[in-house]
């Protein structure tokens, strides 16, 4: 009580703020397409209204709310409270279908792993676009395993655990063999003699003809996957 009385004596008579002026200022700033000049607000207030006091009162009103009345470069605007900025960011899962080339490449990696880019090209009969393997690695389904012990030491690719989980496979060996593929009607039966489907194997251990990715692993960590072309 004493404090209030003391205040009464200490301060000047506070400028009288008409509730209507608060409403007007609020509406103007809300509807404006850009931060609003105080003079432009003052123009619309009731005669003799103290625009500074009105804006201060409005700012006080919004201080604890989800939206703040902010002064930006001398003008007024509503802004989301800084601690709620996270509300304005949204994660969007953009669903995309794999291209035909990518899915064929994936199938070859799955059945024939570990494979090099050249192996894939040999099987598909066309050049593997850089994009196809990149997409598969971005999807988390294909990984670089190591390097083939052969001229050029090309990178070998294999499938990941994520690949198995996405396609609902318990193990890579669950990929159907030729009989099952034929049984499912995926082959029309006019296959040349001796045609077969390999027994897929994604054993993480390197094969006898594979080297580890070696020191370039560190490079890759720093720079992202290195293309095979710049390999010496």
């Amino acid at each position, binding site marked *: 009580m004493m404090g209030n009385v003391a205040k009464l004596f200490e301060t000047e008579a506070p400028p009288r703020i008409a509730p209507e002026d608060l409403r007007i200022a609020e509406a103007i700033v809300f509807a404006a397409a850009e931060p609003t000049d105080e003079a432009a607000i003052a123009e619309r207030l009731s005669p003799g209204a103290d625009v500074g006091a009105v804006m201060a009162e409005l700012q006080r009103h919004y201080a604890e709310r989800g939206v703040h009345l902010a002064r930006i470069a001398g003008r007024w605007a509503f802004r989301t409270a800084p601690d709620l900025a996270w509300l304005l960011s949204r994660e969007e899962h953009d669903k995309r279908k794999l291209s035909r080339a990518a899915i064929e490449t994936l*199938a070859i990696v799955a059945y024939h792993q570990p494979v090099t880019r050249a192996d894939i090209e040999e099987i598909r009969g066309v050049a593997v676009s850089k994009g196809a393997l990149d997409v598969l690695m971005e999807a988390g389904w294909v990984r670089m395993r190591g390097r083939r012990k052969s001229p050029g030491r090309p990178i070998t690719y294999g499938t990941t655990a994520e690949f198995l989980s996405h396609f609902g496979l318990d193990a890579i060996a669950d990929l159907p063999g030729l009989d099952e593929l034929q049984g499912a009607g995926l082959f029309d039966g006019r296959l040349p003699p001796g045609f077969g489907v390999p027994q897929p194997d994604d054993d993480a251990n390197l094969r006898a003809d594979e080297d580890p990715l070696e020191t370039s692993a560190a490079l890759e960590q720093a720079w992202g996957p290195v293309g095979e072309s710049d390999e010496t």
Partner: protein
Amino acid sequence: MAGVGAITDDFQVERAEGEPAFTVDLDGYEGPLDLLLDLARRQKVDLSRISVLALAEQYLVFVEAARKLRLELAADYLVMAAWLAYLKSRLLLPAPTKAESGEAAELADALAQRLRRLELIRRAGEVLFARPRLGRDVFARGEPEATEVAATTVYEATLYDLLSAYARQSQKHARARVRFAPRAVWSLAEAREALMRMMGAISDWTALDAWIVEYGVEPKFRRTARASSFSASLELAREGRVELRQDAAFAPIWMRPIAAASQAS
């Protein structure tokens, strides 16, 4: 009836200000129903109590007045006039049968109802547009804050996609690719190397054919192995490393190392 004069007066004034050529539309009226509704309003009673007979008469007077002014009325005004003239006669003349008089009353009711419905929708339009409208009376946030979208791509593919892709491409290439079976050939160099090794192992006359079989050459290689070995043996004989002997044409060819021969002699 005072209203009719007023309307035709209005009409004349409007035309007078317009272009001198008489045009077909009645300015201000959107069709005969609109005109009828206006006439009905001038009866100064509520629409549920309008006299259709009076309305028909007013309309016909109006159309007559317009024609005296040598205005060409749009066809639908004349159609309505004809219809109203018919309705009027039916309402006025004693009907030969009860059913027919009832029919005339029904027609009148239907017209009255159409007018009420038009009036109602007109009111509805007015009430609708009297509402505070967005962008005119009420405003949305003028400076919306954009939502930052962090897009992550999720790739979709089904096991069926995967398997059919594999089958599709492997089948395509299985058919398309021409594969030459590697010819079963024992090269001269291979034969020579094999013979050289044999020289170390034998000391006496050995039949070349028997040796080839003994050496474990696979059956499909025997023809080529025989030809290559024969050529290689001739070469080795010329170099003085082996001796060759054949007892008769097509008889087995015998071979022994020179070193072994010199030792024996």
